């Protein structure tokens, strides 16, 4: 898609940055080409409003981060829009079709594939079998067709081929025959992401993809996510690792106490006083006692944004 051979390989990244440059950094900002649009989505547990999002859009093809302090409702929001948790109110659409009230498996078939904060690998299946499960539209997944291997054997070979390629990319090829339950925490994260990719998602939703991943692996994973953006996949992820958010995201959405409090390019968002307040409390720069010093340190590390 690059028009000149001298153009850098990350062509999509720059075009998305250009598209988002015109978006005003306010909560609920409309995007020029939104793949996901949500309206007045609420979910409360008893008296606690876990999610109260009035409007949210995700730019197609972007890497959008969803950040916020613990208990902000990020995972609940993910659960609601993927059909794992019923909302109290709200409508949302993905690629133009409404998904409110759609069961989780149909949401996935629409192309919104998610991973989980606590990884859900299938322990007693091999890594390769985990991968194969991710493929969509398998003929052999019907009860009666399953009885006739001739109907699905060829497709199974294609799926295996694709799974092996994907395992190679995610550095898991050497454990392909091991039980998924024997993998380390970081490897499980990788496997879950690779398995989600087997479904050919148009939007990949990652819930804390970096939690528990070895720092040496983090860098290759980040590169991998950036490459996914080049293939046109939208990535919407929850993360606490600010370095990662700064490094890869095109747009950052900040949630606190269930609502969206800020939006914008990563550098701007991390300087936003409302965001710093949400993370550290509104009175964080008033030195109360000796703990005032450490609080200021955190605020500095949050706002340092120059090195990427």
């Amino acid at each position, binding site marked *: 898609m690059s028009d000149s051979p001298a153009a850098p390989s990350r062509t999509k990244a720059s075009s998305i940055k250009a598209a988002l440059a015109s978006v005003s950094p306010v909560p609920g900002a409309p995007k020029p080409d939104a793949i996901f649009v949500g309206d007045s989505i609420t979910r409360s547990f008893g008296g606690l409003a876990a999610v109260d999002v009035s409007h949210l859009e995700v730019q197609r093809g972007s890497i959008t981060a969803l950040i916020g302090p613990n208990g902000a409702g990020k995972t609940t929001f993910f659960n609601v829009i993927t059909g794992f948790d019923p909302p109290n109110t709200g409508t949302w659409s993905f690629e133009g079709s409404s998904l409110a009230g759609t069961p*989780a498996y149909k949401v996935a078939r629409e192309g919104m594939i998610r991973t989980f904060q606590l990884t859900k690998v*299938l322990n007693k299946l091999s890594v390769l*079998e985990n991968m194969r*499960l991710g493929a969509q539209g398998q003929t*052999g*997944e019907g009860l009666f067709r399953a009885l006739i291997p001739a109907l699905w054997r060829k497709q*199974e070979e294609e799926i295996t081929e694709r799974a092996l390629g994907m395992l190679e990319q995610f550095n898991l090829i050497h454990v392909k025959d091991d*039980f998924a339950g024997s993998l380390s925490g970081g490897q499980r994260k990788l496997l879950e992401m690779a398995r*989600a990719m*087997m479904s050919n998602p148009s939007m990949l939703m990652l819930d804390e993809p970096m939690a528990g991943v070895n720092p040496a692996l983090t860098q290759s994973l980040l590169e991998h996510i950036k490459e996914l953006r080049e293939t046109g996949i939208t990535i919407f992820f929850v993360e606490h690792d600010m370095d990662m958010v700064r490094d890869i995201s095109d747009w950052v959405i900040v949630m606190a106490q269930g609502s969206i409090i800020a939006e914008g390019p990563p550098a701007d968002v991390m300087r936003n006083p409302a965001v710093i307040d949400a993370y550290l409390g509104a009175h964080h720069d008033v030195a109360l006692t000796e703990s005032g010093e450490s609080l200021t340190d955190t605020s500095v590390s949050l706002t340092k944004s120059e090195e990427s």
Partner: protein
Amino acid sequence: MDWLTVFQNSLTQMIGVQAIIYCLAALGLNIQFGYTGLLNFGQAGFAAIGAYAIAVTVATLGWPLWLALFFGILGAIIFALLLGIPTLRLRADYLAIVTIAAAEIIRQVARSVSLNDYFGGSDGISGKYAADWYALNPLPVGIDTALIRFSRNDLWVVINGWTLVAVIVLITWLLVRSPWGRVLKSIREDEDAVRSLGKNVYLYKMQALTLGGVIGAFAGVIFAVAAQSVQPDNYATTLTFFAYAVLILGGAARVFGPVVGSMIFWFLLVFVGQALNNAVKAGYISSSILRPDQVGQIQFMLVGLGLMALMIFRPQGIFGDKKELALDER
């Protein structure tokens, strides 16, 4: 002490009608519990439906046996849907509670006095209702050797029964190696993960419950045909728990687990009983320690001890993989 008779009886029972019945019940549970992780504690109910379908349609209504078989399968499917629709969306333990209760409801209804005319109350229904089928028996005589002994009719049941087992084992083998089987195993591991990958978990659980239930109904069909009678108390929860013992003994989620498990279970049960009986009669065990009428209880105690030892020393069953089991402890 007559060791030859002890062995003859034990080996006969190892491949006898009871072994077939429990093997079939366990084959159904293997699909439900072993592969899909569904805790069906109502397998006796499915077997009762198969058995009563035969007894009521053939003996009471006088319809042909093949039609009775059709009703048995249909009944099992309806029962599975009734159990599954409300419970399969809920956590696994709800299915366990509902199935064990539903199976008991079936038994209590079958033995109720007010439905005596249809189901024969606690006496059940006896009669020559598989006479047509026994008439097809081409065997001239039964078999009587030093190791096994079957009457002509029993041999016909046993041959057909094990053929049915072979067909079901083949189907199970084909299914669990297919992408369909992969979805089942994945549901057992984590159904939310399977949902997040676009599979309709509810449908798969329903298919597994129904398929396992129909196989369980075949256990009842064989029971009814072999005994030429149906008694409600044969379909109490003990049947379900013996079937679970058979499944776990052989190894859950292993295609041949129920077959080998059932053979070992019945060999041990009969062997311990017969050996004790013979030992008491021959005076090896003083009647001040064990009276002949106590042998039945001691037999089950010893088999129970054996099963406990199995769970301690080989928790994965005969065919199981210890590495798989160790994954749960991480």
